[in-house]
């Protein structure tokens, strides 16, 4: 089946183009049945897209935890300060689970043994439910510890995204604050900045 003539060749080319593009073109967004699953190192650098990812979560938590532990409010405290995690607010254009950031920071801080944590918004209801069950045996007034917070941690995640035809750039700023709830004084604050750049290839599929 040879295509010797220009007309025939043109038809073949055009029909090939149609085959590639008609009815919506190539299928996307599905993992084929031949796809394989492998375990990877959870600490390995993840660069699948410019969106917020596991590496960003890990480096942010590590950086801010170390900074907080090095602050005199924690390092030089005479007794383990009692901390409550409050909300880290998401001001980005992504659906970032900011609880993931605070959970990781809490785990790292607790591992250090330098601080004590009180129940936060997420598990306070469970604490009260448990307490209600034992209300007859324990007076609420005796549970002063729960309300006796030395510091609270709050924060924000913000992003700036820019794009041209060939380059995509995203900048994340994660900031945390340690505040004395009695005085309202912000005693410590730090930030973690992340910038990711992606470039489009000139030629490709």
């Amino acid at each position: 089946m040879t295509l010797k003539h220009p007309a025939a060749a043109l038809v073949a080319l055009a029909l090939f183009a149609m085959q590639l593009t008609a009815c919506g073109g190539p299928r996307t967004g599905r993992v084929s049945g031949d796809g394989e699953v492998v375990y990877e190192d959870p600490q390995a650098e993840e660069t699948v897209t410019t969106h917020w990812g596991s590496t960003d979560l890990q480096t942010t938590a590590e950086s801010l935890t170390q900074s907080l532990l090095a602050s005199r409010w924690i390092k030089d405290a005479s007794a383990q300060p009692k901390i409550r995690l409050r909300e880290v607010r998401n001001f980005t254009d992504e659906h970032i689970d900011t609880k993931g950031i605070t959970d990781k920071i809490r785990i790292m801080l607790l591992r250090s043994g330098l601080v004590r944590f009180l129940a936060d918004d997420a598990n306070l209801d469970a604490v009260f439910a448990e307490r209600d069950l034992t209300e007859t045996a324990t007076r609420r007034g005796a549970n002063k510890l729960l309300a006796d917070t030395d510091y609270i941690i709050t924060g924000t995640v913000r992003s700036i995204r820019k794009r041209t035809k060939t380059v995509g750039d995203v900048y994340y700023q994660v900031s945390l604050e340690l505040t004395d709830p009695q005085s309202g004084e912000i005693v410590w604050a730090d930030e973690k900045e992340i910038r990711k750049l992606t470039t489009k290839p000139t030629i490709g599929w």
Partner: protein
Amino acid sequence: MARCITATTFLVCSLFAGFSGGCASRVPTDEIRAAILSGEVDDLEKRLEETHEEYSEMVTALNLARVRQMDGRWADSARAFDEALAILEEYESRALVNIRALASGAGTFLLSRGAESYFGAGYERSLLHTFNALNYLMLGDIPGAAAEIRRMEQRQAFWLEESQARIEKILENKEKVYDSPEELPQGYSMREILSDEAVRGLVNNYQDAFSYALGAVLLRLAGDLQAAGVNMRRAMTLDDKAGRFFEQAWPAAAGGASLKRRDVPPLPGKRPDAVSPAGKRTRKRPDTQEVTIIGFTGLAPSLGVENVRIWVPVVGHILIDLPAYTQRAVPGSTLLASGPARKQIALHPLLRTDLLAYRTLWDSMRAEAGFAVSRAVSRAGIAAGAYLVAKSNSATRDYAEIIGSLTMLFLDLTAQSMSSSVRNWETLPNTGYLAGTRVPRGAEVTIASGGSEQRIILPEEAQGIIILATEMSAANLKVYHVTY
């Protein structure tokens, strides 16, 4: 020679068969529209799920997401929107010069408008996020809704870069034809619609006041006052009706340069400010509650292909295939809202998807017309080539005219078959309304459309309520609400 013709005919036949078979299994536009307008979407949902499972295209994902949303399946709808977004982002990350775009361009230039894959027009890409924000809102996830609104803003900025440069390039390079819609071919059905003042009066083809006004409402709830203020001003710049909405909803804020902190209600479940000096402040509970109504009526127009006869110098009259909204928008019934004592709450129509669709078509008309002529000429050229080859060979000379005609017929049928894949996001509503007011605590709010009416008694403990009302048919009004 005979082998050449056989090869060509074989290719044309097999590919025509392949295309017609492949495209036929999509849910036809007529059926989608009939199901939505009847208010019965259960079967449609199943069929769209099957279609999307098979094709995984952006348009199938968008249609599925919207139908699920109409049915109140917020999480499932958000998942389908995410799939549509993943497809769009994959498209946007492709190489500058890529084989798929070249093939698509060649197909569009030579054979059929249907060779161009759908990745959404500017307003559709933007509305993807606006409608997904509604899913997060109805799930009670205000930060999630705010993230979608920020994506909507980003998307509009990206589209500006993508479309503006293209439009300017077309204007520079093309001859001065179709300077106005009145110059379009007489037989083209879109001629009068594109000449409509409402279409030509739009600031551009991708920005809508509804998305920005809704964005202001949601960002305010998310506590991002600065961004809420920016969205409010953008909405008011785009449409005077947005100004009337804000005057009604936030009378204190709309007149000033920025929103005021005291206008921001706390988030759902939010406890008193975490950072507050010693000494508790007691907040007086207001006697009124906020009511925001988001309403959708009608159905957007559906894109197809229309054959139009035009006159080309030297060649004479030729038949070209132009994209056209072959199924017009359905305006729907008038949505009405009222508060206590049947006092009417004004609903402001801030979204008109038909106008955005028509304006998008007009902005791309020069390029579309150029491609349509080239397609007509290339099809005629191929058929003429087949005729000349047949004529030059003694074995096929007697059948040259038949071979030429058959080649033309095959090409036309193939192009026509491919045209069925020219689609748009056809499950969008035609009109989107917003209303905002305050009513006495625990009051009753009534939403009515056509013959349907639904009443909601405001829960007294809530700061406010957001009501989402979708009119699917005169007798079928779906009303959902979320409190904060």
